């Protein structure tokens, strides 16, 4: 019920070892601070779900929190590769990483099915690619009306969804705007959810077109100013492109990364 709590309490309560956890945010409003809290609380064996695992997932994987990654594009947007992800996928460091790989359209539709309370979604996708042969959660399905062969993907219903938003009120109603990615879908699909926000206000100013997650769709809300940095929160701060570029050097080397982790997160 949109209970206002601290980030540390929310993570302690909602994220358990072995859980399936989705931190979403499509470039915009990525819950980076919440990811760091998961690292600090030393969660293990997580199945991490995210369409675009970027540097916060590189950090979670490098810190040894993940057993499996469900994703559609793992890279440092505009910069290059995720080196901690690569190291885990190619060399099993610090722990082996199982992967379940989709396209964006497939992942988005898996959340849509999850949010809709349906067992699967249908899309016209994947045909002719090598992905169906490698991913058990992609299967052909025949349209009962036209006979066309389409693709089915199962619903994704994470144990916990974590997203960042601009603001909430004291009742835990959440307001967000700009690029909204799959925020609504992942929160509605998940069994529990945490929304970190830039600020908690007494009264939400009505914003035409703003997407609101009503309090009763959200489990916990935590005020974390700057909680999306180095990604951005429209109306609050811009994306720190220099940080994304600098991550490449930090993450290339295991020792440099471990140093960074000790210094900046733990």
């Amino acid at each position: 019920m949109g209970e206002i709590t601290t980030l540390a309490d929310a993570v302690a309560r909602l994220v358990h070892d072995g859980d399936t956890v989705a931190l979403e945010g499509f470039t915009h409003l990525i819950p980076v601070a919440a990811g760091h809290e998961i690292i600090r609380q030393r969660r293990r064996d997580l199945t991490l779900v995210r369409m675009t695992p970027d540097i916060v997932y590189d950090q979670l994987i490098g810190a040894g929190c993940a057993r499996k990654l469900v994703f559609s594009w793992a890279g440092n947007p505009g910069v290059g590769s995720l080196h901690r992800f690569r190291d885990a996928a190619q060399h099993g460091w610090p722990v082996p990483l199982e992967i379940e790989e989709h396209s964006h359209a497939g992942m988005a539709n898996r959340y849509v099915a999850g949010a809709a309370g349906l067992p699967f979604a249908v899309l016209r996708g994947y045909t002719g690619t090598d992905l169906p042969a490698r991913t058990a959660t992609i299967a052909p399905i025949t349209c009962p009306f036209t006979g066309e062969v389409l693709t089915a993907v199962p619903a994704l219903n994470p144990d916990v969804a974590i997203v960042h938003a601009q603001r909430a009120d004291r009742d835990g109603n959440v307001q967000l705007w700009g690029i909204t990615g799959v925020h609504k879908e992942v929160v509605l699909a998940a069994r529990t959810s945490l929304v970190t926000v830039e600020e908690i206000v007494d009264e939400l100013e009505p914003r035409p077109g703003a997407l609101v997650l009503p309090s009763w769709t959200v489990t916990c809300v935590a005020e974390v100013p700057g909680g999306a940095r180095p990604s951005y929160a429209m109306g609050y701060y811009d994306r720190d492109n220099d940080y994304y570029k600098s991550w490449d050097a930090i993450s290339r080397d295991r020792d440099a990364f471990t140093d960074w982790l000790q210094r900046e997160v733990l």
Partner: protein
Amino acid sequence: MTHTPGEMMTVAAARALTDGDRCFVGIGKPSTAANLARRTHAPHLVLVYESGTIGAKPDRLPLSIGDGVLAETADAVVSVPEIFNYWLQPGRIDVGFLGAAQLDRFGNINTTVIGEDYARPKVRLPGAGGAPEIAASCREVIVIVTHSRRTFVERVDFVTSVGFGTGPGDRERHGLRGGGPRLVVTDLGMLAPDPQTRELTLTRLHPGVTLDEVRAATGWELRVSPDLRVTEAPTDTELRVLRALES
């Protein structure tokens, strides 16, 4: 003005866009080329980014497909499920702009893994993103890629996005509705599919590039169009606008 091979590639890709096209843009060279086209010959180009921004008019180049400047300047900002389900899947987009880690003679693209063993790849790449459905659904696809034997391979290690599959009729067999790759723009020249065989064929050499250089950078026995010509060098205006964009 003199130009670099990279500038030639971006300018050539920009010229391939027609004013008014609805263009699904990836980050990097495709985004640079599309923004260059909008500032030169195609002011009504509609830039669509997979983050959900439709009709973005950025005044600077975004570093990522979800930069704030895209949302602030867009005609509409929609959710990610909507951009794929309502806008891409039904065929509302004219041109898809894609890059590639590997590309084969039938225009199939790999951005997943290098190496034969998916579970133990030599190099783990970022993966599919929006590309498989962009390649499947857009009316046509333009690929921008640096020309080398590492990239231009006989067979891709993994088909992330389908070009012409194994040849004529393959797209239809897979139920893909878009037309597939129309053009491949590289730093050395341009390739287009042969209308009969669907095999990528060299149609243009960029100024100063020899046919032998292109052959040496291609990992299959390259077919050359009987109509092979030299690309027109970038104009001063194109270079000036491009450099202002990238500065």
